């Protein structure tokens, strides 16, 4: 649709507050030849129990229903994978459900768990996401991912997702990047930032000490995208425990308020008809009155350059949480950097910059842990985990990984968990001698964007320290 009724723009109002109490992740790797998926899920749940000083059995005794996110049954050649995992976690016969929304699966899994607690159906839920991308070779994996495009109108064209996303990147590159070298450098800077941050993350498998030249010299995938502009393919699991208020303060000293909202758009990008921009609280139509003149060819919205799904998810989520201006009200974010250009697109959809000006979020230094121009903390650091480019993209787990990473900052435990030499050793890695604590000190609120492919589904998850709420319930 291109016009909304008032009912469709209703800001969700939950029946009671929902809290994130703990979370966990397995290590992430390109392949895990010697571990079954269930083992990775157990690793994630074990970590969640450890973080709140409980035994797994104790933590499990609180769980009432379970929400399982796994994007591609085909990859694991296992339908009803949720039944297998639920059994292996020993949670049967509690109710559970499988959730799949492509790359947004992790966030959608949290969305379902969030609604279950808010409604009063459950006081405590498990949200667990996983993916295996190593049970088929790369070519076959490309075909399976391409099957998440329209199977009659897109998939037969190349059986490769790059063909469906990269055309968006091309248009952004030409219209907003203006094919400038400086823009190409800005794209590369994102890859450099995320790969280098991942070096300090024991869970990550894409950490690399690279510079801009490394990105610009990496093999072309689909011009202008090079290999180092693109995200990883990974295997792993991540989980979160969401509860009501009473259970939250029983399980954890500092549970976090959580809000999750969702948006969507057509699967085929070409089907996206021109429409008015849904505005975020800090935006006005005035900002975009001469948009087509400033950016010739860019006047079709969202066209091939905006993700309306992200914009809709933020439209609802910001208003649910009372966010007026994300740059002022958020302290960190984890965005879906499937490609460097899609990261830039997301800055605009999330309102960190107006449409067309996303590059400034990087060039100003705002997105860094430490602003390289000023040496001071970045205004809104993003993807300190390394994101999808540096840390992982095990599709069903990614959206949950992002939220767990954000939570670690808000709990003040990011340094403790990422810096623990025993964890590095358990993952068969060596903690770098120059390991950096990438904590955002005093962080109170965060945003995570979980996103499917070309933006068919997106969720926005906001975490907020309960003493720093922006909106009364």
């Amino acid at each position, binding site marked *: *649709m*291109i*016009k909304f009724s008032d009912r469709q723009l209703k800001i969700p109002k939950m029946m009671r507050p929902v809290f994130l109490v703990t979370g966990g992740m397995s290590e992430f790797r390109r392949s895990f*030849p*010697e571990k079954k998926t269930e083992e990775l899920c157990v690793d994630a749940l074990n970590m969640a129990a450890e973080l709140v000083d409980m035994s797994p059995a104790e933590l499990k005794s609180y769980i009432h229903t379970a929400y399982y996110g796994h994007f591609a049954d085909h990859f694991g*050649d296992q339908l009803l994978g949720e039944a297998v995992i639920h059994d292996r976690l020993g949670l049967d016969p509690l109710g559970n459900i499988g959730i799949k929304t492509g790359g947004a699966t992790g966030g959608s899994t949290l969305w379902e768990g969030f609604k279950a607690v808010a409604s009063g159906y459950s006081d405590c839920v498990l949200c667990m996401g996983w993916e295996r991308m190593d049970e088929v070779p790369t*070519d*076959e*994996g*490309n*075909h*399976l*991912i*391409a099957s998440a495009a*329209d*199977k*009659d*109108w*897109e998939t*037969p*064209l*190349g*059986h*490769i*997702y*790059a*063909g*469906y996303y*990269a*055309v*968006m*990147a*091309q*248009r952004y590159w*030409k219209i907003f990047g203006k094919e400038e070298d400086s823009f190409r450098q800005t794209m590369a800077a994102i890859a450099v930032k995320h790969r280098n941050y991942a070096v300090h993350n024991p869970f990550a498998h894409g950490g690399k000490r690279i510079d801009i030249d490394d990105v610009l010299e990496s093999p*072309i*995938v*689909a*011009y202008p995208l090079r290999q180092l502009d693109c995200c990883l393919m990974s295997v792993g699991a991540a989980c979160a425990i969401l509860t009501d208020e009473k259970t939250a303060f029983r399980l954890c000293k500092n549970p976090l308020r959580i809000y999750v909202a969702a948006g969507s758009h057509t699967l*085929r*990008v*070409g*089907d*996206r*008809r*021109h429409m008015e921009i849904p505005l975020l609280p800090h935006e006005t139509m005035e900002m975009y009155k001469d948009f087509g003149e400033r950016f010739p*060819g860019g006047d079709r919205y969202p066209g*091939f350059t905006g993700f309306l799904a992200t914009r809709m998810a933020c439209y609802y989520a910001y208003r649910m949480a009372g966010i007026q201006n994300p740059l002022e009200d958020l302290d960190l974010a984890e965005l879906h950097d499937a490609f460097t250009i899609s990261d830039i697109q997301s800055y605009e959809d999330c309102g960190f910059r107006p449409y067309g000006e996303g590059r400034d979020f990087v060039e100003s230094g705002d997105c860094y842990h430490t602003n390289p121009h000023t040496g001071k903390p970045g205004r809104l650091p993003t993807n300190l985990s390394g994101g999808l480019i540096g840390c992982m993209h095990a599709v069903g787990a990614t959206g949950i990984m992002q939220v767990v990473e954000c939570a670690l900052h808000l709990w003040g435990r990011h340094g403790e968990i990422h810096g623990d030499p025993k964890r590095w050793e358990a993952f068969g890695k060596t903690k770098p001698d120059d390991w950096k604590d990438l904590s955002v000190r005093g962080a109170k609120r965060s945003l995570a964007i979980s996103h499917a492919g070309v933006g068919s589904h997106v969720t926005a998850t906001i975490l907020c320290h309960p003493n720093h709420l922006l909106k009364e319930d």
Partner: protein
Amino acid sequence: MSQNEVLPTVEVVGRRYVLKGKFHRIVPGTPIRRRSDGKLVGITKPRDMTYIHSYGGEAPFFEALTEGRLLASRCDNPKCEFKGTVYEPFRIHCPDCLAKCTIVDITDLARETAKVHTFIITERTGAFNTLKIPIRFVNIEFDGVATILMSYMPVGTPEIGMRVVPIFRTKNPCYDITDLAFVPLGTPESDLPEGFTFGK
């Protein structure tokens, strides 16, 4: 599939599918061992299975490609707020009012107005790809059509805004979206890939 095996086929008789031939083959898996010590780690699982897929209300579009015609759809519901909107890709129902769309032939419109909206050139493909590498993906806009069609350009190098014309695999068609492609305006027929023509 060995030379002696017949490709599986399906016909529709009345409301039923009538199947002929083998729709799966059983191929044994092989053990996956760790090279260092020969320990068993897993097993390969070959899969050879044929789906039966219905085009449903979109079948006219795919049939028309084999005849050298490009069909689109238009909502003609007088009660629809967006009456008159033309869609390519073809849609069975209007996404606004859900009424069945009218099928419209836009072959001439495509010849006269088709332009490249965006494109990508890639050497990378996935399993089962049949297009020649590098693939030049193109997304095509047409005057007066609300949406944009994904396709490929087997001849020439795309640019945003380039005028293009449709070509159709009218000889030995595959009966899928690869029977349609676009080439730069002015491309001679002799340059078209095998089996393709400029259509009706």
